[in-house]
């Protein structure tokens, strides 16, 4: 007979001091102690002796833990149990089941896990509740109760009933209301197009058909804003992507670009044999309400994009960039329904950490940007880089190939994720969007990775794509366009549990699933490979050339739409947008008294201080390919501009990845925000030894609600900058993505994010070039600043520190900069340069300070300039690089830069201090130790 056994695991040291610290951070000034135990509930037909064995041999380790069976451990205080909501996948359940089987016992019918907390202290019921919600669990995925009783309730089995939506009789009002009620994110024009289509067919659509169209036409999937038509001032723009982004790649014609703007990722040439696939995605909305799950599934999703590039690429690196609100904001100032930025940052870091580390992919490039505009809408960018044999870069999908689903099972998780991403967040998002959040299971995805790479190498995969936003409906709906048809049998999809309707199966965004297109004769071998790697596989349909997307559930046709309508029936966005002006003005601030104090403050400012606390949590060295790591040095660490890996064990050729992101500048000019992001990404690559001729870019646009004219104008301006700057740099765009509607609204509050463009740069470092790091190497070596310094302090970290919001933002003179970059590359090739660092946030003074840390080498600097010292030292003028030149090579270096702007600054010193004389006056003398104390203040 099946019984439920509750096994509570009690660590000898159950005290959770880390949670106690978080409670103090909440501002609760009481003496509190927190204890935690783990609970397993096992349902099965077992004797007490069996359970004793399970507890002692599997669940509890007597070296450090004790256990109780069906008996509650007590330490006193207020106690409660946390378990997952029904339907949230807990991978530990499978591992426990598997372990019990290994012991020769019957497999349990069900296993659940949870944890129990004890809070000791004089607290009210409300305070306990508040503390629990803020520090111990997330109500979006977990529930709290004195005892978790109803954990084994199973859902009702699903009974088939075809649902038709009577759109043909809907008025315009009805159409809009229906779209809103169902969270479809379709506007009236789009709903009318659907009505027209089905009226012509003389029938009403099924719910599955409407959902399929909503997913396919969602902003997330089809980028309708970027593909729209605009009257901008007196200009007419048809398709922003085509006009400004893809056009750069067409014009600069770089033959190292192998796959551009199609497929799941851009692919560039690495060498004759292999290509590099790269993709950057965002996962903003889910991360706002459940940071851990949001970022984990964000990184999981972009990894699948790389697995789904060509006929399968192998991930070699992850990247992540987070934009969050002020980390020191008091809890009392947070709008209702908004998580504290610190909790968000800790959560998203932990999500990327746990997913990326378990996948065995080094997360080694990234950044964190802090601005009050991200308070309610944090941005979470996740990227993955992969390597793929060039013979597998072209997909080859034909009618008749089987549609194969591999990986995780399908549940109710993540339903309506993409349409959720196409709406604004509001107070209640935390409650209404529960279904839109998913929990990642990296080990299942690792199995998928192992299967795809093995199967690809046996040439069994003709086509592969990931099941991401929109689930099967997007993955199959989009690929069906290639063959012009598909037939899918939804009852063949393996489910996590009973109770899913056909439409839920079709649009579920359950993670860790991939769709393959496979020749029938290869199915058996593919199944064997899946068996070897313990990965689930199902054949769920076939691609056709019928012109139709046909879906069946237990013999019933539930969807029959023309591929042509699905992919070409969407009405275009046509809008008029007024041209906006972005005036800049000259701002003069009174001369500050203490240069040293300002430098120290800048070094510890949240946008500049060390990211060590985050980077160390990532396994940035797994795969053994790292060459230049994100932190350089051993104990004291200098930040590095671009990271470099050697993606192939047997090749000296290297790959460098950089990022450019300058959202503060968008408060003054969205155009120059975008221009500077491009320059920063390019410059960071060149500064470590990449050939400027061999750089490709990725664009990720994150903006507020584009239905607002001012936001739309920002988007257009940023797009123009992409075109005008990148074409001069001759850097093609190879892939991009956008995330819009990053806006938070309540009745009396609107917070929009600053216009944010993340540029990811990717470049190759040739075999014969030695990459250069950003720290001082040897005393006596001369230091130079390459490029021109102007009074460009608008939205600089210095002005932000002073609380000034105006001024000139840095301008990008791409043609001049390119000459500088080409010359610097020559200098690096000739090994004249031994250290090199791009000058960005905080300006020159910060850049010099950062270079002193890794080897504890100081610098003695003397500058003469027309500018005032603070203008010179803290200006963020673009196009500048600080370099250390080898002793005895000055002449050669200076000759090389003859016609270009450069300035001799001084020398590296063995004395561990930084001394700066400005116009013959000593203004800064600081020990490295003192600077590092500020710089290394923890970010989280």
């Amino acid at each position, binding site marked *: 007979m099946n019984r439920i056994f509750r096994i509570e695991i009690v660590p000898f040291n159950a005290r959770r001091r880390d949670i106690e610290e978080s409670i103090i951070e909440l501002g609760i000034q009481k003496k509190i102690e927190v204890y935690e135990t783990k609970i397993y509930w096992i349902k099965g037909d077992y004797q007490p002796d069996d359970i004793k064995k399970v507890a002692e041999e*599997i669940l509890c380790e007597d070296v450090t833990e004790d256990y109780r069976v069906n008996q509650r451990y007590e330490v006193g205080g207020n106690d409660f149990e946390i378990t997952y909501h029904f339907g949230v996948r807990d*991978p530990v359940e499978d591992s426990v089941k598997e*372990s019990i089987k*290994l012991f020769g016992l019957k497999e349990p019918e069900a296993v659940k896990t949870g944890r129990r907390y004890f809070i000791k202290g004089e607290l009210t019921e409300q305070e306990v509740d508040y503390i629990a919600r803020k520090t111990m669990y997330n109500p979006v995925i977990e529930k709290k109760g004195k005892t978790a009783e109803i954990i084994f309730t199973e859902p009702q089995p699903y009974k088939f009933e075809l649902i038709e939506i009577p759109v043909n009789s809907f008025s315009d009002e009805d159409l809009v209301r229906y779209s809103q009620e169902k969270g479809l994110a379709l506007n009236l024009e789009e709903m009318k197009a659907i009505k027209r289509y089905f009226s012509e067919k003389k029938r009403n659509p099924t719910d599955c058909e409407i959902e399929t169209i909503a997913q396919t036409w969602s902003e997330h999937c089809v980028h309708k804003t970027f593909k729209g038509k605009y009257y901008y001032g007196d200009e007419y723009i048809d398709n922003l992507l085509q006009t400004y982004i893809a056009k750069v790649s067409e014009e600069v014609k770089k033959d190292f670009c192998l796959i551009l703007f199609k497929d799941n990722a851009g692919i560039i040439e690495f060498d004759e044999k292999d290509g590099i696939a790269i993709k950057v995605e965002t996962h903003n909305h889910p991360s706002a309400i459940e940071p851990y799950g949001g970022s984990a599934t964000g990184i999981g999703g972009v990894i699948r994009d790389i697995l789904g590039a060509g006929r399968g690429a192998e991930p070699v690196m992850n990247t992540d960039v987070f934009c969050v609100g002020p980390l020191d904001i008091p809890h009392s100032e947070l709008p209702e329904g908004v998580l504290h930025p610190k909790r968000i940052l800790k959560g998203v870091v932990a999500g990327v*950490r746990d997913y990326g*580390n*378990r996948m065995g992919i080094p997360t080694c490039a990234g950044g964190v940007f802090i601005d009050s505009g991200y308070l309610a809408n944090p941005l979470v960018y996740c990227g993955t880089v992969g390597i793929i044999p060039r013979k597998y870069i072209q997909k080859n999908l034909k009618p008749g190939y089987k549609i194969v689903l591999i990986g995780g099972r399908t549940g109710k998780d993540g339903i309506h994720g993409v349409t959720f991403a196409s709406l604004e967040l509001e107070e209640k998002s935390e409650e209404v969007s529960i279904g839109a959040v998913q929990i990642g299971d990296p080990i299942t995805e690792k199995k998928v990775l192992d299967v795809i790479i093995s199967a690809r190498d046996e040439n069994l995969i003709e086509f592969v794509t990931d099941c991401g936003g929109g689930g099967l409906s997007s993955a199959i709906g989009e690929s069906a366009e290639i063959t012009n048809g598909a037939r899918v049998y939804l009852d063949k999809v393996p489910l996590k549990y009973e109770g899913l309707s056909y439409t839920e199966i079709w649009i579920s965004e359950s993670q860790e699933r991939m769709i393959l297109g496979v020749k029938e004769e290869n199915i058996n071998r593919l199944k064997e490979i899946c068996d070897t790697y313990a990965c689930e596989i199902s054949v769920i349909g076939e691609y056709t050339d019928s012109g139709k997307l046909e879906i069946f559930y237990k013999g019933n046709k539930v969807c029959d739409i023309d591929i042509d309508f699905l992919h070409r029936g969407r009405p275009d966005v046509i809008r008029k947008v007024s041209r906006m002006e972005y005036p800049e003005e000259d701002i003069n601030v009174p001369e500050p008294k203490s240069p040293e104090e300002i430098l120290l403050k800048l070094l510890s400012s949240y946008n500049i201080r060390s990211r060590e606390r985050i980077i160390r949590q990532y396994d*940035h060295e797994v795969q*053994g390919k790292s060459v230049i790591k994100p932190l350089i040095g*051993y104990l004291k660490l200098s930040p590095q501009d671009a990271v470099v890996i050697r993606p192939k064990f047997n090749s000296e050729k290297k790959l460098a990845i950089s990022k450019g992101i300058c959202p503060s500048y968008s408060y003054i000019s969205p155009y120059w925000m975008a221009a500077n992001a491009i320059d920063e990404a390019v410059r960071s690559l060149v500064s470590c030894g990449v050939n400027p001729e061999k750089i490709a870019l990725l664009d990720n646009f994150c903006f507020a609600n584009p239905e607002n004219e001012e936001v739309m104008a920002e988007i257009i301006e940023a797009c123009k900058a992409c075109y005008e700057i990148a074409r001069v740099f001759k850097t093609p765009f190879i892939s991009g993505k956008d995330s819009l509607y990053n806006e938070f609204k309540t009745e009396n509050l609107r917070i929009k994010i600053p216009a944010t463009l993340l540029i990811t740069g990717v470049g190759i470092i040739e075999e014969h070039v030695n990459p250069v790091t950003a720290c001082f190497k040897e005393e006596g070596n001369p230091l130079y600043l390459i490029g021109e310094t102007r009074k460009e302090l608008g939205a600089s970290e210095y002005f932000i520190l002073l609380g000034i919001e105006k001024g000139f933002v840095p301008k990008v003179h791409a043609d001049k900069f390119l000459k500088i970059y080409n010359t610097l590359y020559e200098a690096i090739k000739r090994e004249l340069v031994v250290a090199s660092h791009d000058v960005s946030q905080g300006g020159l003074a910060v850049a010099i300070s950062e270079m002193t840390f890794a080897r504890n080498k100081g610098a003695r600097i003397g500058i003469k300039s027309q500018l005032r010292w603070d203008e010179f030292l803290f200006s963020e003028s673009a196009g500048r690089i600080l370099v250390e030149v080898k002793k005895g090579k000055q002449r050669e270096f200076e000759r090389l830069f003859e016609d270009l702007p450069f300035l001799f600054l001084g020398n590296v010193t063995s004395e561990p201090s930084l001394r700066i004389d400005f116009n013959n006056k000593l203004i800064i003398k600081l020990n490295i130790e003192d600077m590092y104390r500020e710089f290394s203040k923890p970010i989280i």
Partner: protein
Amino acid sequence: MSSLKAYIIFAPGTNCERETRYALEQTGFVADIVPLKDAINNFKKIHDYHLFVIPGGFSFGDDIKAGKVLALYLKNFFFEELKKFYEDGKLILGICNGFQVLVRAGILPFFDGKQWASLELNSGGAFEDRWVFLKKERKTPFTEFMNDISPIPIAHAEGRFTAGRETLEKIERENLVVFKYCDEKGNIKNEYPVNPNGSLNGIAGICDKNGQVLGLMPHPERAFEEHHFPESVSIRNTGKSFFKGVFEYIKQRF
């Protein structure tokens, strides 16, 4: 071609198998990565090999405890054959997750199938990737060519070596500690970050009484190439000397 063979076990969630194979191949081994399922089907094949390696990663997601589920597999399917393999004088190596598996399977320190020690959550409370220094505490086949002090990276969440007082004393008394965390000059200190995870006595790696089985938290395969080493570190041969020791030991005997 060399006839010395290394067997790298590959479970769901294992993720350091490639770089480990690369380091072994560069050292002269023929190294095979064997999926767990294939290993279970025919583990007798292990006797064609000379070195059994459990590489780093998160086997089975480190669910329940790090390395726990793979340790149960090892106990269930491989224990007897591994014992024979060991009695033939061959070597067993567990790196990071592999060390956790060896301890939980009762192979280290006493090869008796009982878990005596544990690797618990780092005292810092989270996963950490950083370079540390190791002090060589005794001779084993693995350490023959290593310097007394070696720079090497760690990357784990559960690496705090723990054991009861008596067990710990026995491990020290029987000279089973191979590596301790130390600073650049070789001083063993208990403070962070010299001891990066709060391990008792600064223990980073232990072996069995014959020195044939080694488990260690740091990753010698990630300190193998010149370019792996951090900017300011001048000793750059940790991984190469480590694997050379293994290879030469086996070469002399088989």
